[in-house]
């Protein structure tokens, strides 16, 4: 008996049933998963058992045996249509609520930029440190990832946090998490992206706040992301038109990030990372009301790493600043 138990025990150890639950949203998803599994198991067992019982009880005993007549009471049909519909309705509402809730990053989130490219991840802390295929974060601190791809579609997936989002070229997507357990967790690319898709993996290191602070301070000194962006702003000549003066040909960028912007076709878009990158790379597609199409395109001249620095810089421009810096 003990042998069987230990055998099963080691089997169970070899075949884990769930990944570590290491974020604030993991438990909610696991609960929903458990209920879904329960419903699946229930109906599977129900159907299998009924069929099994019928198979035995109504097996043909002689070749000329006849079956009973079939009556289809409407009540029966309605019952097994309505009950599953109700179950589905409950599941939908529960899941949708979780999804909407999980979609809102807390305002105090640490912001980290992610660039996916064949076949590695660049993770860029605002303070400056850059990591490749690894991300160090502090436990209990919410983190918001703003992500773009240099080339094809990738997907940023941390199973332990139950978070996943596609990473697209030409625009930015985001996800957030708040780690609850110190530890090391898998990072996977979950959208097929070519030859080394399965090697575009890495690790998330969740550390205590003290360790994290030490890690952040311990690396080689770099400027913050926004400072690096400011230098690029000059390097690429952006400041020659976007001077911040009212008379400039180009709109002032100060305080622009996060604000709604009316477009030429009447639609309003929020100035977010995607719009900024679109304006830099495909300026003729961003039709402002006073559309003049004089901004040159930087397609092919600015890669995603430079793009996130420029964006960080634009985000950092408060409305009090004028004339750039």
């Amino acid at each position: 008996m003990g042998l069987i138990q230990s055998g099963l025990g080691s089997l169970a150890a070899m075949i884990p049933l769930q990944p570590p639950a290491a974020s604030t949203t993991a438990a909610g998803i696991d609960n929903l998963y458990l209920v879904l599994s329960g419903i699946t198991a229930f109906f599977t067992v129900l159907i299998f058992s009924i069929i099994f019982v019928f198979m035995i009880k109504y097996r043909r005993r002689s070749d000329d045996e006849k079956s009973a007549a079939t009556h289809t009471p409407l009540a029966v049909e309605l019952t097994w249509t309505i009950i599953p519909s109700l179950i589905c309705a409950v599941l939908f509402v529960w899941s949708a609520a979780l999804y909407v809730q999980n979609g809102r990053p807390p305002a105090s989130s640490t912001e980290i930029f992610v660039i996916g490219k064949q076949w590695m991840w660049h993770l860029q802390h605002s303070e400056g440190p850059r990591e490749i295929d690894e991300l160090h974060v502090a436990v209990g601190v919410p983190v918001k990832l703003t992500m773009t791809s240099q080339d094809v579609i990738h997907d940023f997936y941390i199973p332990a946090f139950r978070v996943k989002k596609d990473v697209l070229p030409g625009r930015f997507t985001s996800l957030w998490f708040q780690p609850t357990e110190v530890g090391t967790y898998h990072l996977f690319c979950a959208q097929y992206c070519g030859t080394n898709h399965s090697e575009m993996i890495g690790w998330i290191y969740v550390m205590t706040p003290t360790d994290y602070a030490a890690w952040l301070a311990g690396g080689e000194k770099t400027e913050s992301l926004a400072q690096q962006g400011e230098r690029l702003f000059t390097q690429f000549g952006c400041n020659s038109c976007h001077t911040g003066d009212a008379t400039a040909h180009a709109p002032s960028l100060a305080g622009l990030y996060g604000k709604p912007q009316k477009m030429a076709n009447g639609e309003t878009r929020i100035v977010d990372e995607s719009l900024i990158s679109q304006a830099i790379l495909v300026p003729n597609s961003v039709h402002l009301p006073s559309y003049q199409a004089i901004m040159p395109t930087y397609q092919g001249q600015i890669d995603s790493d430079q793009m996130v620095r420029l964006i960080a810089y634009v985000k950092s421009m408060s409305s009090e600043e004028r004339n750039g810096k």
Partner: protein
Amino acid sequence: MAAHGAHPPGFAHQFETVTQQREAGTLGMWVFLVTEILFFGGMFTSYIIYRSLHLQSFIQGSHELIVRYGATNTAVLIFSSLTMALAIRTAQTGKSKGQIIFWLILTMILGASFIAIKLRFEWYRDYVEGLIPGVSWLDGGTHTPGVKMFMCFYFFMTGLHALHMVVGLGILTVLVIMTARNKFSSQYYAPLEISGLYWHFVDIVWIFLFPLLYLIGGRY
């Protein structure tokens, strides 16, 4: 049931009656046209999405097209639908095969004119001016990336349409031969009718293409 031996011309033996065959043929053509609507529909949907995202570029691109040729072609096609309908009417009323062939050939001439006008006055000009993406595109000036996108849609959509026109001309050729061989009568002209449906459909696709491509943004 029809007496044994009385086989109407063109009767197909999987059917029981001529009526059944005619109804099946007509339903078949309508179902086929529905698939064509979905086929063009994918392109129209993409067009609509990009037009709303890049309206300025699409207006610019549309101004590269010459409205009078598009308008002429529209008139040509509408008239060809008339001649096609007259061909069917001629058969329906039991007129001579010569008259049927007259209208069919007139339809073919109009269809061919459509293609000729496109090729000679529009596409050849686009080729020379460097407006055909992937074939003769010249960057610079008004030839912005957004205009390139517009021209992609222009050539994809009108190209696919022209291909359908050419197929239509092939069908008309077959009909002319069949008429010449006395296949049709006032009792039996289903192939003419069914082909007419196809021809009218190709016409209607153009009726949508013309304003969507040529008339954006107004310029008058």
